[in-house]
């Protein structure tokens, strides 16, 4: 039940690269939403979430990502996901959110 979020802006590609480590659950998802919202307030751009160290997500975490996606789309930017573990990918498939987020291999 903990989440560390590392985030940095890649000037070359104009994209926020986000490294969440741990679990995005009902306890931590407000924090993720806050961090991403602050980042977008500072600078608009695409978002890439690298799930290499992400172990778990629940429906509130998915909800947080959806609200960020809506915000990003207002500026016609995109949200990409990469290195997502199979147990987490499964939830995106079930909820058909695999169709609205862009998975990068």
């Amino acid at each position: 039940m903990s989440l560390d979020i590392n985030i940095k802006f890649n000037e070359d590609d104009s994209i926020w690269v986000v490294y969440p480590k741990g679990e995005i659950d009902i306890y931590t998802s407000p924090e993720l939403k806050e961090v991403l919202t602050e980042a977008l307030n500072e600078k608009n751009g695409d978002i890439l979430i690298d799930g290499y160290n992400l172990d778990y997500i629940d429906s509130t975490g998915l909800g947080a990502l959806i609200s960020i996606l809506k915000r990003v789309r207002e500026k016609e930017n995109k949200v990409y996901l990469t290195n997502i573990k199979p147990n987490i990918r499964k939830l995106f498939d079930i909820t058909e959110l695999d169709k609205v987020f862009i998975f990068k291999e």
Partner: protein
Amino acid sequence: MKKDTINITIPSKPDYISVVRLTSSAIASNMGLNIEEIEDIKVSIAEACINAIDKSNQINVQFEIEKDKLIMKVDNVYQAKDDDTNQNKELELGILIIKSLMDKVNFSEKGVEMIKYIEDGNK
């Protein structure tokens, strides 16, 4: 037929859902379920608790361990109402996840009952 029952009551706060999740994992592991099945159970029980949160001061969870199945009951879990608020959208996702991951899901006035069958019946 032998049936063991475990009851857990947690305060209705996000902080304690992980306690139920970890307990479900230990129970499922004890029953000989595989890693993917254990993961399904952890995710489902957490989604049920998320649904139940704020509906009462506490969340009641019951595990019934049988030879061929695990039954998990959580009080105050209901299917989402038909409106388009963000919170409701999340509840819908949670219910969809539970229905996809568990073998059988029954809703009643009291709450939800989720069943995972043990295919080889090993214990």
